[in-house]
Structures are given as C-alpha cells and as structure tokens.
C-alpha cells in the first residue's frame, strides 16, 4: 500500500463520520465502530432501547454514501422470500422471472430483526456470510458493498425470537448507542425543531470511495505478535469460567479486520494493541453463550471479555 492511500482513506472516513455527526450528535464512539465494521466488511447489530437513534444512525450512514439502501421492518409474518426475492411465473413468456428482494442492495437496514421468525432470520445467514444468495438452485451474488445494519430491542421479549448463535456469529460487532448527555439532547431538540436533519443529508462519498476505504483497511499492516494477541484474547473466552460456548475463529478474523480499519481511522500505517482492545468487547462479547448459572449469578459476556482484557498480557 502506498503512503498516500492511508491519508486518502482516512479522509473518506472523516467525511462520512462528519456527515453522520450532523444527524447523530454525541455518539462519536458508535459511529467510529459502525464505520470500522463497514470498512472491514462486517455487519453490525445495534442493540439498544427504543428511541436512542439506531435507525437514524443506519439511515444517516446510508444517505452519506451514494449507494442503494433498503430497509426491512422485521415482523413475525415476514417470509424469507420477502427478503431474498421470489421467482414469479410469467404467463406471457411461460417462464419464471426472479424478482430481487430488498437484500439486493448496498446497505440493508434490518429493523427489529428479532421480531421475525427464525426461518426468516436464517434467510439472512448465507447473504451475510458469503455475500450471495441461493434461490431455486441458482447462486446470485450480492453487490461488492453489502453491509447489514440490524437493530434489536433488548428490553422487549414478547413476540420476539432471539437470534440463533450461528446468526449472532455472522455479525462482526454488536454495540449499544446509549443515551446522550442532557446538553446533547437539548441540541438534538434544537436541530429537529423545524425538520429532521436527515432529510437534508446529502451523500458525501461515492460507492467507489467506500470500496477504496475497504481496500485500504484490508491492506493495513498488522504484526504477527498482535495477531497472536487477538487469538489469545479469543481463545481465552473458550476457557473462561461461566462461558458455555466461547468465540469462534470468525471472531478472531473480525477483530483483526476491524482493528485494521480502526488503525486506518487513527491515521496509522499499522495496528497497535489499543485498537484491538477498543474493539474486543463489541466484536467478541455477543458471540459468547453464557452458562445459565453464570447468567443468573449476574455474569455477563461483556464482563467476561473485560476480565480477559485485563488478565491477558498485552504486547507492549
């Protein structure tokens, strides 16, 4: 990677982040993570209380990029074909014609993903893992930029279907937005007094620029020692007390890629331990299956990963 690619890629990141900040105020951390997932080719699960700006963040990102954007509101009666598409028999030419579903897009917002049935949720599996869908025995590749932002509400369980472990593993990151400070909330009120800033938000980068950002992140240097550190962190979750199922090598991969993207955002040419530590919880925690006893004892997956971060010796 030439030395100019990094500042250029960083500039793309800054443009998107700045554009999003016009809509989502006081959330630089989640925006940074969201863009790290985008640049590393992962998908994101936003889990937070209603009204904290999950959908707005996803929309703001979609609008900031001159790319196609689709939104699916997940409901219990949603069918896999409603996502993937369906082949309809055309009597005129006596042939089946495939009608692409909303998944054939660049950025997909899967709103309240846990409201759909597991069957429908699984329809996303192949798409998220392999960037292609198989319909009627035919493989249909998705766009070069395929980014899923799913949201779910952690407090409401009636009429919901918790995401299966396999699907959770498909998400590169899961994080929360959290409530903003009173001052920032006041400025949100002021900004939306007349109209929502989202309505005036214009794309600031092209699809090609985003692909350039992804390529730059992928090419960022990471030392073997830090790869080992990533593996050590993930491996430690498999032996941690209270954890029934630890994180998979897919987690190591996601953590390394996301750390590369973050280092790029920081203007570095190589990854440092700080980026790995910053992303360890959002990348690893949601993949852990906790033992019921540990769960009842108040042990959380987040706590387990934080504990591992403290005990595993960090390269210095």
């Amino acid at each position, binding site marked *: 990677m030439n030395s100019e690619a990094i500042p250029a890629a960083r500039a793309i990141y800054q443009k998107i982040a700045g554009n999003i900040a016009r809509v989502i105020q006081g959330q630089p951390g989640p925006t940074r993570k969201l863009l790290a997932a985008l640049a590393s080719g992962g998908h994101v699960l936003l889990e937070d209380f209603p009204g904290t700006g999950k959908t707005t963040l996803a929309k703001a990102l979609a609008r900031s990029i001159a790319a196609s954007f689709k939104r699916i509101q997940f409901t219990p009666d949603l069918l896999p074909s409603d996502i993937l598409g369906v082949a309809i028999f055309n009597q005129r030419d006596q042939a089946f014609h495939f009608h692409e579903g909303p998944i054939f897009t660049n950025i997909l917002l899967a709103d309240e993903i846990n409201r759909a049935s597991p069957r429908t949720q699984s329809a996303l599996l192949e798409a998220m893992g392999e960037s292609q869908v198989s319909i009627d025995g035919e493989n249909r590749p998705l766009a070069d930029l395929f980014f899923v932002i799913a949201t779910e509400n952690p407090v409401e369980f009636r009429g919901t279907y918790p995401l299966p472990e396999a699907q959770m593993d498909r998400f590169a990151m899961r994080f929360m937005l959290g409530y903003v400070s009173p001052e920032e909330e006041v400025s949100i009120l002021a900004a939306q007094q007349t109209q929502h800033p989202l309505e005036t938000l214009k794309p600031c980068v092209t699809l090609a620029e985003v692909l350039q950002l992804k390529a730059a992140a992928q090419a960022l240097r990471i030392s073997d*020692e*830090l790869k080992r550190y990533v593996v050590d962190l993930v*491996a*430690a979750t498999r032996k941690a007390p209270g954890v029934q199922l630890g994180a998979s090598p897919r987690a190591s991969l996601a953590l390394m890629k996301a750390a590369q993207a973050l280092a790029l955002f920081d203007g570095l040419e*190589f990854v*440092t*331990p700080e980026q790995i530590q910053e992303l360890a919880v959002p990348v690893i925690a949601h993949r852990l299956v906790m033992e019921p006893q540990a769960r009842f004892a108040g042990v959380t997956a987040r706590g387990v990963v934080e504990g591992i971060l403290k005990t*595993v010796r960090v390269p*210095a």
Partner: protein
Amino acid sequence: MKTPPFLLGATLLFWGWQSDFPLAGAAMGLALESARFIRARWEMADAEIIRIWNFCSLLGLAAAIFAFTSNEGPATFGKMLEYPNLQNSELAGTSSTAAVIGLLRWLPMIFFGFMLAQAYSSRTEFPLDTVSPFLRYRRQRRLKRGQPAPRLIHFNAAWPYFVICLYAASAHAATEQTFFWGLCGLLAWALWHQRPQGIGRLVWVGALGAVIIASLFGQRGLGQLARLTDLADNYNAQWLARFMRHGTDPAQTRTAIGQIGELQMSPQIVLRVTPVNGAAVPTYLREASYRTYHAPVWYAGGSPDSFANIPETPPNSGHWTLQPGRTNHTLVNIACYLGGYNPKDGNPLGVLPLPVDCEHLEHLEAYSLQNNLVGTVLAEGPGLVIFDASYGAGTTMDSPPATNSAPGLSDDLLVPDKEKPALDSVIATLPLAGLNEAEKCRVVSQYFAVHYQYSVWQAPDKKSPALQTNETALARFLLHTHAGHCEFFATATVLILREMGIPARYAVGYVVHEPAGNHYVVRSRDAHAWCQVWNGRAQTWEILDTTPASWVATEGKRLSPWQFVADTFSWLGFQFAKFRWGQSHLRPYLLISLVPALGYFLYQIIFHRRRHQPAATGPAVPPVNWPGLDSEFYLLEQALVRRGLERRPGESLTHWLAQAGGDPAVAGMDTKLRELLGLHYRHRFDPQGLAGPEREELRQKTRACLAELR
C-alpha cells in the same frame, strides 16, 4: 511546601524533652536533619511507601493494644458492660484516656519510619493514595470500570509529622510553662517562613505576640479551673470507712443470730485454693477478726483508719511481708476476687482470705496492701488476685490481747451484760475447777460437741421464754434450742471463754474441704465463723472451732446434682476473669503474635520483595522473540515503575502513560512521551519496522527522557 531547615529536628528535641524521651528525641532529630547533608537517596516506588505506612500502622496498633491493656482497658470495659453504671463508665473512660495519652506520647516514634523514608527518598512528596486504602480502592474501582482515574494528590509528610510531634509533647507536658513557651517558639518558627509577603515584619511579630499573650491568659484561666476541680476531687475524708463492698467488711460483720428460718447459702465458687509443691492446704482461711459483740453485730473495734500500709519489698516484686522475721516455707496458692471498690479511685478493693498464721505473700499483683490490728488484710488491686501465701505454725498476724488501758482498743475480754446470765449458767455446768486455760478450752469444746447440734433452721417457738422475757437469741441457743449454725457456736464460745477470763476473738472466713482436681474450691456456703483464743503460754492466737464437724456434711447434702453445670460456668467465668484482670499470660501472647507480622513488613521494606502478583489467567505466551523487544523504551518504563507507576498486565502503554500523566515526575513530558511511544510502537508492531535514523532517534529520545526523569 517544605518545612524550614532544622524545624523538625528542634521539634523532636522538644518532644523528647517534654515526654521524657530525650535520647530518642535527639537521635530521631539528628537522623532526620542529617538528610540535609547526605546526598544519597532511595528510589521508592509507591508499593514500598505503602509497605512502610502499613508497618507504621501495625506498630501503632501494637502500641495501642499495649497501652490499652497496660491501663486495664479490657477490665474496665468488661466491668462497664457487666454493670453499666456511672462509676464504671467513668472508670472505662479514665482507662481509655490513659491509654490514649500513652499512645499519643509514642506517636512520633510510631510514624518516624515513614518520615525518615520521605526524608531520604528521592521524592519530596508522597501520593495520598499510599496512606489511604480508601483512595486506593476508589482509584482501582474507577480503573476497573474504565473511568478516568482521579488525579493523584501528593502531600509532604513533614507538616503532619510536625503537628503530631507537638501534639505528642502536649500529652505529657513536663511543666506547663516550658511547654507553652516551647510550643509558641516552634509555631512562630514554622509560621515565620509562611508569613504573607504583603505584611511588614513588625506587624507580623506584633500580631503573633498578641495571640501569644491572649493564649497565655487563656491557659492560666484553665489552670485555675483545673486546680479547683482537683480540690473537689481530693476532698474525701475517711474513704476507707465508706468503700462499697460485696464481701467481708473489716469493720463489722452482721451475724444471722436471732433470725428465724433457714439460713440460705449460695453454692457459688468464691475461692480456688491450690497446694504448692504437694503441701497440704490450710483448713481455715480467715478474712477478718472482730472483738466487740453487740448483738447481732460483731465490730472490729478501733477506728476505721486503723489500717497500716504493708510495704512491697522490693517494689513491684509482688512480695509482701506480713510477719517479718518468720521463715515458713509451706505455700498455698489462692485465687480470690476483690469484691468492693475504693470510692476514691474506683479500684477494686477487698479483704484477702489468708491462713491465720500467714507469713508473707508472693506474686500478689496488688496496688497496695494494708492490715489492721486484728489481722485483717485489705488489698487494692485488680478485681481478681492470684497469689501464693506462705504459712506455718507459729505466731499470727493479730495483735496480742489488749486491755482497756491500751488507748483506742477494745477489750478482748468484754462480754455484753445482757448475755452474761446465760453464759454464767452454762459455765456453772462445766467441770472447770483446777484446770488451766488450755484444758478449759478443751472442756468448752467438748461441751458443745456433746450437747449441741448443727442446724441452719431456727424455728419460731411461741412457747419459748424468749418471747416473754428479754432473753437474747444467743441465750435461747445456749439454754433451750441447743442447735444453731456456726455463728451461734463461734459467738457463744468467744463469750464463754471471755467470761472465764480467757481472751478470745470472733473470726470469719472459709473452710477449705472440697477437692476439685488438683485444687480445692471454696463455695460461698463454705463461709464459716470460729473462735480465736489466746494461748498465753505460746503467746499466740489459736483456732477453737466448736461448731460440730457435721456442718460440712450438712452443707454438702444441700448441693444440687446439677451443681457441676454451674461449676463449669464458674470455671469459664474464672478463666475470663483471669484474662480480664491481667492474671493470665494472654496479653504478652497477643503482643508476641504481632511480632511476626511486624517482622514480615520489615523484611518486605528492607529487601524490596514484592508480594506475589496473581499470574495472568490468559494463555501463556510462548517465549517467542518478537521483533522490537530491544527497544530502549523499556528502560523508561522501568524507571517509571520504580517510581510506583506500575503497569498492569492487560494495560496498554497508551493508557498507562495517560494515567501516569498525573504524577509530578512525568508532568510536562506528555508530548515527548507520546512521540517516543509512537516510535516504540512502530519499532514493535509495524512489520516494516524502523529505519536506521528513526531507530537512532528512538534511542536518543529515550535517553533524553530518562535524563529528564532523573
């Protein structure tokens, strides 16, 4: 903010002078002030400072325990909890005050180690976290939660130590005047260096002078007030006659003669008697003797303050000679409670039960010992005393019989007129003609043994002439009932002998007869009264106990089969009392048990051994020779760790340096350290590594930072 030169040395000298530790004060002052001339300094990490502080705190705890137990703190507090009255609360307060004052005097010595550490440390100030576990806990908790750590506050221990020294000196002011002027001088010295710049020297001196004069008057006023209260406290006439008692009163004893009904006696264990070297124990342990009978009370006679001090020779040896010149070697160990209290100073006070021919006492930890002319020994000391009494046949502690001619003494031959008819009628029946005094005594004894019975029951007899005439209860015993308890027998014997012209006294005490393992227990119901008769030939008092021996068996029958349960609790109570009154060796054990802990801390401080860090629970990193491990940045890290800025296993260098930014040692070096860290990270984590000139830059910058740190 440093203290003025030599101020601490002078303050320590002053403290040593005022607190009677002049040598210690001078040595400590010299050691502290020498730091101004010695250039060598210790590189101390926070962990070392914490250890020194813990050592000083432990020393303080040991000193507090020592001071508290030395001033009978457990005893007074135990008493206060048992009997929560005003007097006991005051006693507990007094002992606590004495302990606190003792501790205050030692404070400069206790914290000297910490002060010395600062004086010889390369750091002029210590973080407040090192002396506060709470602050350390708060910091760790915030770091654990990922919140920014609170800013480190540093302090100079010299000023608090200066205040501690002055406070300690005030706890034991040698004389009011020297302390006052010394305190003024030292405070003026300290304040002179901190005086506001905008104020003239004369104005400052004038203001200080005014404050000193005002405080001088204030102190004089307080002194006068204290003198008045002392006067009130010391007004306490005839204290001996007024002390509150639960046990035997040396001045008088009220008998149960004349009472109707059964005499109830408690089976509670009051004494524990242990033979020493296999010797037999004395049967009778006397508490007091009395001379004058005025039914139903026996009086000791003489004035209440007729007690004379018995010297402890040599002082604090626990050896008290009651009869100089005798050489008896039979010993008996006696444990008894001092049941009363001296109203003057609140100390336990009581009559000691002793063999009548006791010669001296050993291992008796009493504050004072007094005896009167009738052989009663009064002890003031802890609530429980355990001692050895030496005894043997021979003279007794009592004065020889006195006559009316001796001033201030009652007659040992005095018989109340109203008892005489009954006594005479008894004497008339005795075959006494031609007998000497010893034979007469034997006849009297036989008379009681043959014609009288032991009984604790006195029946109301409506037909008795006693109700119709003025016949006394004793006369009724002698002439009609012929049955009574020991007080009847003893009183009757004393009066009969006196009536026959033989000097006799009424004695009370205990009979030792109940073995319990390797010792004897004496219960409250073993209390006994007997007659002491004067043997003119041997010039000594002898015991004449005319109570039928069946009284012991009679009392034994009244013992409950469940008595062993009560005895077990009594034994436990006795063991607790031994601890409570400092008669056990628990206190030295307690203090000795602190020695290993103190030694451990000392070892840690001297040899810089760190406590074992819990191993990282993560997978062990194989010993791979990762690139960049030769970075000079590690020297810088080590230097900062030596200053107490330790890095946890999972803490990244960026986070660690951000935390270390609060330390004054690295204040102002933030930018340089960040640049250096950038180079170090490239050297370590960039697969391309550093180019030659950049590698050299890393070396140079690290050296510069190290030099700046030093």
